C-alpha cells in the first residue's frame, strides 16, 4: 500500500495513544461504578464502555484526526503552492505560468518536469516542501541531449531561481530531496512529503531574436 502524507505524525498515531489512555480511564470508571453498584446491591447493569461520554469524545477526536489525515494528500493539495512557503516567492509584477503542480517526494527521490518556456520572458521557478526535506536539488537539463544547464548545488541549493529565455524551448527540471541522514532518522518510514512547484513569468525583451 502507498504510504500517506502525515500519516506518521499527528493523525492516527496521536489518536491511538489517546485511545489507550482514555480506555484505561474509562475502564477504571467502569470498575469503580460496578463496585459501588455491587456494594449497594442495586443490581444495575455494568455500564458499557462504548456508552461513556469519554468514548464519544474520543470517537469525535479520532474522526477529526482521521479526516484531517485523509485529506492531507498531494492529490487534495492543489492549492498547496498558495499557502506554504511558495507564497513568499510570488511577485506582483509577474504572472503565474502553467499548472502549479504538487507531487509527492521522499528522501533521495527524483522527479522531473518537462516544461515549455516561451521566448523573451523571464521566469521564476520555485519549489517548496516541508523544511525537513530540504535541501532540494534543482537541475535544468536539455531534453534532447540531457546536457545539464544548471545545478543549484552551486548556489547552496536555493529553492527559487530566475531564468530568462530568448527563444521558446522545453527544459527538464529535475528535483531531488537531498535531506541528510539525520532527517531520514526523524522521518520514520519516510512516507514522503508534498512538493509544490510554482512558476511565474514576465516579459523582458522587446526584440524577438
Amino acid at each position, binding site marked *: 500500500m502507498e504510504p500517506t502524507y502525515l500519516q506518521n505524525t499527528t493523525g*492516527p498515531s496521536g489518536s491511538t495513544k489517546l485511545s489507550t489512555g482514555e480506555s484505561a480511564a474509562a475502564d477504571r470508571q467502569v470498575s469503580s461504578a460496578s463496585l459501588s453498584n455491587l456494594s449497594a446491591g442495586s443490581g444495575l447493569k455494568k455500564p458499557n464502555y*462504548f456508552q461513556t461520554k469519554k468514548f464519544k469524545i474520543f470517537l469525535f477526536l479520532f474522526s477529526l484526526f482521521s479526516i484531517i489525515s485523509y485529506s492531507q494528500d498531494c492529490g487534495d493539495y492543489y492549492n498547496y503552492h498558495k499557502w506554504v512557503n511558495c507564497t513568499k516567492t510570488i511577485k506582483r509584477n509577474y504572472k503565474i505560468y502553467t*499548472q502549479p503542480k504538487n507531487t*509527492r517526494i521522499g528522501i533521495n527521490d527524483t522527479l522531473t518536469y518537462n516544461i515549455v518556456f*516561451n521566448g523573451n520572458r523571464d521566469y521564476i521557478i520555485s519549489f517548496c516542501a516541508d523544511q525537513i526535506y530540504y535541501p532540494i536539488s534543482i537541475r535544468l*537539463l536539455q531534453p534532447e541531449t540531457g546536457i545539464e*544547464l544548471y545545478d543549484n548545488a552551486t548556489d547552496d541549493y536555493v529553492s527559487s531561481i530566475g531564468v530568462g529565455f530568448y*527563444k*521558446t524551448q*522545453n527544459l527538464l527540471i529535475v528535483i531531488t530531496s537531498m535531506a541528510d541522514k539525520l532527517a531520514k532518522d526523524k522521518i520514520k518510514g519516510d512516507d514522503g512529503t508534498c512538493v509544490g512547484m510554482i512558476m511565474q513569468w514576465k516579459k523582458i525583451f522587446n526584440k524577438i531574436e
Partner: protein
Amino acid sequence: MKKINYFFAGFLFLLLLSACKGGGTNNRQTADISDKTVSDSGNIKKALGYVYYLFPSPAEVLTAINEGGLVYEPQLLNSIEKREKYVKPNDQYLNLGVYVADLSYCALFGRNNDAVIYLETIKRMSDEVNLSAEINNEFIDKVKNKENNIDSLEVITSEFFFKIVNDLEANNRQNDVAVISTGAYIECLYLSVNIVKKYSKDNLIIRKIAEQKHAFNNLYQYCKKHISIEDMSNSFSYLKQIYDTYGQFSEQKEKVKVKEEQNYHLTISGGNTTVITEAEFKLFKENITKIRNSITK
C-alpha cells in the same frame, strides 16, 4: 444498543482504514507519469525519476501567439448554438475545449460580453459532463467585473482552465483532460492560422505558431499516457496529425548558451528555431481548418 455499538466499532475501523490509505496511491495515479527514463549516453548520469509533462493553458498559448499581433475576428469562433448538437461524450469534451479556447480568445481582446456568453455555454456543457462543481457563477461574475482589464481576464481564464484540469485529475479523469485540451489547442491553432491572410517569412504570428511545437509536444506526450479508450481514438489521431506535421518542419539549430548572473538568475540564449515555409504553412492551415471543422461540425 449493541447494534449501535457495533456500528461505532465499524465506523471506527473504516476511519482507521481511510486514514491509512490516504490518497498517496491516487496522487501517483493522477499524476502524468511517464516511464523512468535513464540515458545511456552518459549525458544524464542520474535517472530522471518520474517525468511530468506540463503544458500551457489555451489562454497562455494564445497570449504567446498574440505577441506576433493577433486580431479579433469573432466570425472565426465556434457558434454557441451548436452546443446542443454535441451529444456523444467525445464530441462534448472536444468542443468543451474548443469553447474554452474561444473564451480565452475573447478574454485576450477584452471582449467581456462575448467571454461571458462563452463561459455560460461552457457551464451548460460542463453540467452535462459532470464538471459543474468547478464552473460556478463565481467565474462568470469575475469575468463580468473585469471589464477592460485584459491582463486580469487572461489570468482568470488560465486559472479557470487549470481548475478544470485539477478537478478532473483529482478524479482520475486524465483521459478527459487530454480530450478537452486537444480540442482547445486545435481551436487556438485554427484561430491563429486563419488570422494570417498572407504568408511572409518574417510574419511574427507564423513564427509564434511554429513555436507552439513545444506546447503540442508536451500535450502529445501527456495524451499518449492517458488516451487509451477506443472512443477517444479520434482525438488522439487529430493530435497525432498535428504533432507529425510539426515534426516535418525544418529546424535552424543554434547552440544553447547559459549565462549565470547574480541573485540566482541565469539567462538561456540559443536553441532551435522551427521554420515554416510558405507551402508548408498553406498545407498546415488547410489541415488545421479541416480538423477543426470536423470537430465542430
